């Protein structure tokens, strides 16, 4: 007769060892994933923002609101510079905002710098990765789009986005949606499939719409040809694995001073997905789990003969 005394502590130790072993196999650095997700499609479209040229007229805000059916600011409201007193984030009823930052230096350099904020349309979007029902999708053509029909309102996307872009219609209790810039690719948008409204309206063409690769080439050409005007870094070229929106900053100003976050080049979903997808690789967790359960059952099986004998005796 073998009596095995399986304590609770012992069980957890064994289960943990098996589980950890399984996940470690998947956690091994996988270069293949990294290169696969960061490379954007050649046809991926984007927008290049020439920050030094922006004059803060906020015509892009007005055009965006018009294209999305939001309240359009009047000419008088656009004139009002007091809106720049506080930093404004894109909200559920305005997908883009222009903020003012003080320019450094004396004289001409002291003039304010204006930065347009909106969804960056990442190459490897965290919102897409975080969405458990697949309501967010990254299109081959660049935009990150949202399907309200699939959305269940968990708002994981809002937590996941490194730029804090998706917003929620808290003012709409019955059919709330997550709202953010769609690069004018949403249904019902008059600019759908073409140049985004903000790009179309910009009076100085500070916004350029085109293939992301062309925009990158143009950005670097601008930096080369006007070294006194532009900082050498193109924000969005490598940040979080690359974004469809690319930004050129004025020389002497750093992106951190202009409200941009200092983010690494690795897309945030890369780490989480590596764990998630890694531990499921080669069907390991189910096998490990069922193996563990089987092993526990095997070890802790009632000794039928002994039990019988005990009963008989």
């Amino acid at each position, binding site marked *: 007769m073998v009596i095995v005394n399986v304590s609770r502590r012992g069980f957890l130790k064994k289960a943990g060892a098996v589980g950890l072993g399984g996940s470690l196999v998947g956690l091994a650095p996988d270069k293949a994933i990294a290169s696969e997700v960061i490379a954007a499609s*050649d046809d991926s479209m984007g927008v*290049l923002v020439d920050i030094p*040229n922006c*004059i*803060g*007229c906020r015509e892009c805000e007005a055009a965006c609101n018009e294209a999305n059916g939001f309240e359009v600011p009047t*000419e008088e409201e*656009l*004139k009002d*510079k007091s809106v720049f007193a506080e930093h404004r984030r894109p909200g559920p009823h305005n997908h883009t905002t222009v903020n003012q930052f003080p320019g450094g230096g*004396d*004289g*001409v350099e002291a*003039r304010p710098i204006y930065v347009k904020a909106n969804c960056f349309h990442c190459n490897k979007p965290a919102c897409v990765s975080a969405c458990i029902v697949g309501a967010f999708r990254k299109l081959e053509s660049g935009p990150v789009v949202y399907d309200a029909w699939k959305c269940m309102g968990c708002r994981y996307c809002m937590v996941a986005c490194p730029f804090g872009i998706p917003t929620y219609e808290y003012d709409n209790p019955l059919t709330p949606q997550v709202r953010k810039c769609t690069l004018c690719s949403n249904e019902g948008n008059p600019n759908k499939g073409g140049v985004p409204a903000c790009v179309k309206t*910009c*009076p*100085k*063409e500070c916004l*350029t719409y*085109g*293939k992301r*690769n*062309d*925009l990158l*080439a*143009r950005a670097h*050409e601008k930096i080369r*040809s006007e070294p006194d005007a532009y900082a050498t870094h193109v924000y969005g070229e490598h940040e979080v694995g690359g974004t469809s929106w690319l930004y050129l900053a004025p020389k002497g100003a750093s992106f951190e001073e202009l409200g941009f976050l200092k983010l690494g080049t690795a897309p945030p979903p890369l780490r989480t997905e590596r764990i998630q997808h890694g531990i499921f690789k080669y069907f390991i967790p189910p096998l490990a789990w069922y193996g563990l359960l089987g092993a526990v059952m095997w070890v802790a099986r009632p000794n039928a003969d002994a039990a019988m004998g005990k009963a008989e005796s």
Partner: protein
Amino acid sequence: MPRLFIAMLTILLGAAVAESARGQDKKMPLAMEELPCTFCHLCENPTPRYLCLRRCPRTSAASIDRKMSLKRGPDLVYLDELENLYLPVPFDHKGHAEMAKMTEGCAVCHHYTPEGAAHPACISCHEVSPKQRDMRKPSLKAAYHRQCMSCHREWSHETACGVCHPPKAGGAKSGVASRRPTKDDIVGKMHPPIPEPHTEIYEPRSKPVPGEKIIFRHKEHIHRFGLKCVDCHREDSCSRCHEKGKEHKQQTRTLAEHHKPCSTCHNVDDKNACDRCHWKEGESKPKPFDHASTGWPLSKQHVELGCRACHKRVPFHKLARKCDACHGDWKPDTFDHAVTGQVLDENHEEADCANCHANRKFDAPPKCDECHDEDDGIAFPAKRPGPEVIPSHRKNDKSTGG
């Protein structure tokens, strides 16, 4: 099993070929696939090391200032491409051309002028709605706005459309009916007038001597000595003078750069001449220039004149004390003798100047003895050659003084 291996190998090969083709595509420049190679390259076979690129039109207008003169350019230009929506934008061409001299000249705006031709209109290169998107070339709307807004937002901090585009009655934007704007609608309204500094006293930021100050008589230098704005204000930013509601900041310059505009006339290396502009706290200010210190006090109409009326060369040099040096062209039929206070009667008005003013020496009393016997009392100063009047410049004195 071998069949599966061959199939996989085929897929892999196919993928590799596709990948290499994609890599080649990437090297195509900037959405310009449709353009002929000669649009950018001068030679037939450019290589990555020798691209033989054409010069960008923006930088190829070096000779423009020679070809164009301010006088030939228009005073006011109406930009009326959007006339169906707004009233035309009145552009003060002359004013901007004068200011442009202080920066990079006409080429600031007229950045492309083909050899031997008048400068082309903006619209001939910058299309209203370009058929083919060239990221390098802005559309007409952007070309105008880039040209105007970059400076204008510096001084007015206004970016609303209505500042330049007056709304038109019945246009897209509701507004009041108004006439075609004129220059009077611009200067002092759209453009804040620049207050002209009279006398400026500076305190140098890095003081060589404690309490030292520097005087610069701005108005005198402009109106009397005939300095042009561009003589000192070179490569200045527009907002230095134009910025609304802000005292302009002094620029950081080296000692040599500070003295450079002055050195055209003043000997800045002469250590004894420093006190013309520099003085110390508590001492008396340097006095303005007095022509009497040269030994020739200016009188009558000469006081009113700018220095360059007589002193043609810069720096100013001593002139021969002869009226003829400047007034060599005086003749009886071009000179109205009444301005001297002496009207010539009909016997004298035809006479040559030198008949009375011997050797054309106008500062000495006339000699009458060539025609008149002085003892008869019919010659000057006993008798005048006509009625005496109040000289014209004194008349002005009375009218302004009274």
